[in-house]
């Protein structure tokens, strides 16, 4: 089955009914196409409200589509919702754990939702609890954020899913907890689990995903492997220039006109020059400098701040 298409979306659209005086209704997903093969790790990248989570809910068969077509595991989510959900694991953005229950009880109850027998759950618990160190009998309330996230991931694996959907898996976690989770997700991928994740973080997308779709306003605005996207849209270096208040606009115009090279972007607090050679651009800038020198920093684009 390697290489088989697990998810196929064509012109996928989701419109929510009008709320709070918005007569038009809200088009959260606006006619997107994508395909996902077995064993792939696919990421949706984009700002809040871009339609990432909305797209995930369609794939998870927990929300009907408004238009276009969607096949998940070869089935139609509108008709075969329960069967699709039985073969998918979901890690929601807010953990949705039963806080008053212990780690073990959370996993057990969730397993029962899938109709798994006690014996099967007990067998799988042994593996899954390894993710949670020695916390099996602790109440969820007492766990740290990173540990809760690990429990949510362990919980989503109880039905041995073919596709794992992760909605912002590491948002709000400290760097160490993020690395532990990445490591775990990477191993799952190696074991053949297909991953679909949403994230705001470029570094997470680069670490985990084979293929990325950048979403904005309900549409896919760019798609490809992290390498392809970087080659197509990211320059090797980004020069950041800060000017005294009031001089910024003039300075950016001068930079553009002065042929500093690369794309110049005016931000509220600084001017950013996307270029392959930051030092050269800075040297060029000195030719068209104003009376006061700006603070500057040039370097490779930081992954979290380069948003082109």
């Amino acid at each position, binding site marked *: 089955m390697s290489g088989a298409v697990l998810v196929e979306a064509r012109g996928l659209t989701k419109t929510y009914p009008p709320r709070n005086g918005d007569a038009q209704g809200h088009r959260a997903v606006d006619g997107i196409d994508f395909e996902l093969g077995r064993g792939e790790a696919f990421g949706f990248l984009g700002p809040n409200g871009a339609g990432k989570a909305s797209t995930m809910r369609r794939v998870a068969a927990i*929300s*009907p589509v408004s238009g276009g077509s969607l096949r998940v595991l070869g089935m139609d989510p509108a008709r075969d919702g*329960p069967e699709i*959900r039985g073969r998918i694991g979901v890690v929601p953005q807010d953990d*949705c*754990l*039963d806080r008053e229950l212990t780690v073990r009880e959370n996993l057990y109850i*969730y397993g029962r*939702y899938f109709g798994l027998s006690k014996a099967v759950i007990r067998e799988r618990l042994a593996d899954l609890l390894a993710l949670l160190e020695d916390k099996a009998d602790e109440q969820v309330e007492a766990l740290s954020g990173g540990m809760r996230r690990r429990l949510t991931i362990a919980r989503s694996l109880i039905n041995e899913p073919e596709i794992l959907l992760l909605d912002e898996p590491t948002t709000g976690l400290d760097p160490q907890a993020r690395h532990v989770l990445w490591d775990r997700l990477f191993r799952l991928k190696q074991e053949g689990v297909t991953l679909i994740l949403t994230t705001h973080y470029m570094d997470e997308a680069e670490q985990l995903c084979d293929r990325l779709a950048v979403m904005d306003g309900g549409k896919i605005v760019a798609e490809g492997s992290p390498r392809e996207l970087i080659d197509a849209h990211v320059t090797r270096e980004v020069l950041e220039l800060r000017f005294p208040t009031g001089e910024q606009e003039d300075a950016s115009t001068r930079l553009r006109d002065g042929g500093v090279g690369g794309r110049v972007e005016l931000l509220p607090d600084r001017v950013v020059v996307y270029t392959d050679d930051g030092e050269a651009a800075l040297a060029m800038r000195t030719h068209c400098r104003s009376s006061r020198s700006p603070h500057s920093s040039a370097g490779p684009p930081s992954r979290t701040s380069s948003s082109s």
Partner: protein
Amino acid sequence: MQTGFIEGGGRVVAAAGWQGSYRSAATTPLEPAEIMAGHLLFVAFRLLTSNAAFVVVMAAFGVSKGWWVIATLPAALLTGLAFATPIAAWAVGLRSPSKMNSAFRFVLMPMYMFSGTFFALDQLPHWLRVAANALPLTQGVELCRSLSLGSATSLEVLGRGAYLLALAIGGIAVARLTYRRRLHP
């Protein structure tokens, strides 16, 4: 009524909202109607166990006569569900519990006062008595009271029972729609 309201109201708002219990269950093969059925089973369990405690106390203090008191168990269950199912149908769509508090203050509490729970309805003026008789709680109270005292007629039991059953089933029918709308938006 109160147990039906608490377990079918606030708890549903929490499970559909900040607690997330419904959201996590909705990603499994369970359908929204099954999640609703599971919750109502829990409400029924809570109703039965708390009613049983009342029955034991009533029997111990000799308030009720004979074995008929056992029949108040299903009657009180039906009364509780007649409230719990429509309230759950409404509660699942709420984004915050504040409306639930208002419902308790302005609907449930007045109903408590005018349903013959604390004083006999004959003390009310005629028009208010007619209105009070139409309240589901009045029907439930009368049903349980007459059964526990052994004074119930079969016509009365059937009439009041049918009224409460209609409310409970109507509530389930609406809840099937509202649960789907909230859990599979």
